[in-house]
C-alpha cells in the first residue's frame, strides 16, 4: 500500500477551490482531515488539549502553504509529515513522557473496542515509548502505513523504521506482561 496512490480523490474539488481562496472549501478540507491530524497528535501526546492545539497549528500552516499542495494525495502526505514533525519537535522540546490519557477520549472513538481496558492500557503504554517509536507505532497502527511510507513521512531509512517498530513492539509486550 502506498500512502500517495491509495487515497481516493474525494477532496480534489475542495482543494482546488480552497487554493482559489474559497474559505468554505478550506473548512471542508479541515473537516475531512481533522480526525487524522488530531489523532496522530493525541496518540503521541496522550493529551487532548495539546493535540487540539497542535492540529490547529498544522491547519494554519496548511492554509499558508496551500499553493504548494499539488493534489489530494500530496495533501494527505503533507499533513502526516507536518503533524509528525511537529509532534517530534514538541516532544523533544518539552521532553514529555508518560501523560495520562483523557477519559473522554474513549467515548469519541469511532469503533467500540472489545476490551476497553486493553485499549486504554495500550494507549497509555504507547505514550511511554521513546519519541520516534511513538510516532512510528501511531503511523503504523492508526494510519496503517507500511515501513516504506513511514520512512518517507519521517525522513528515515526503511531499515531504521523496521528496527524501531520491532523494538517498540517488544517493549510494549514486555510492559503489558509486567502489568
Amino acid at each position, binding site marked *: 500500500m502506498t500512502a500517495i496512490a491509495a487515497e481516493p480523490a474525494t477532496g480534489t474539488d475542495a482543494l482546488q477551490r480552497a487554493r482559489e481562496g474559497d*474559505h468554505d472549501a*478550506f*473548512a471542508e478540507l*479541515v*473537516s475531512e482531515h*481533522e*480526525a*487524522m491530524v*488530531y*489523532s496522530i497528535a*493525541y*496518540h503521541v501526546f496522550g493529551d*487532548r488539549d495539546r*493535540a*487540539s492545539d497542535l*492540529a*490547529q497549528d498544522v*491547519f*494554519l500552516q496548511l*492554509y499558508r502553504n496551500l499553493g504548494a499542495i499539488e493534489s489530494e494525495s500530496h495533501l494527505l502526505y503533507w499533513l502526516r509529515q507536518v503533524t509528525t514533525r511537529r509532534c517530534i519537535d514538541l516532544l523533544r522540546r518539552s521532553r514529555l513522557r508518560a501523560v495520562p490519557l483523557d477519559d473522554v*477520549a474513549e467515548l*469519541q*472513538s*469511532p*469503533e467500540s*473496542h*472489545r*476490551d476497553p481496558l*486493553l*485499549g*486504554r492500557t*495500550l*494507549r497509555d503504554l*504507547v505514550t511511554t515509548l521513546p519519541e520516534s517509536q511513538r510516532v512510528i*507505532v*501511531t503511523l*503504523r*497502527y*492508526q494510519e*496503517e502505513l507500511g515501513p516504506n511510507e513511514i520512512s518517507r513521512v519521517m525522513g528515515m531509512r526503511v531499515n531504521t523504521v523496521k528496527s524501531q517498530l520491532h523494538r517498540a*513492539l517488544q517493549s*510494549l*509486550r514486555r510492559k*503489558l506482561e509486567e502489568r
Partner: protein
Amino acid sequence: MSIEQGLKEALARKSPPPGFTARVMDAIGRETRVPARPARRWWQWAAAAALLMAIGGGTTAHYIEQRREGERAKQQVLLALRITGAKLRGTREHVRAISRQEE
C-alpha cells in the same frame, strides 16, 4: 488478541473536540484580517508639520544664499571688464599720441 490487533483498535482515529473546524477557521480569519490603521495623534501631526517647515526653510535659505553668491560673482566680472576697458582705452590713446609725434 495479538498486540498488533490490539494496537489497531486502541489507536483508531478519534474525532477532535466539537467545534474544532470552526476554531481553525476563526484563527485563519484573525490571521488574514487587515489590522485597522491606528488614528494619528496630534503630536504626530505636529512633528510632521515641523519637519516639513524645517525642510522648506532650509531649502529657501540655500536658494537665497546661491542667488547672493551669483550676484557677487556677476559684479566682480563687470568690475574686471570695466578695468580692462579703461586700460585698453589708455593704451590706445598712448599709441595715437606716439603716432602724432612721429608725423
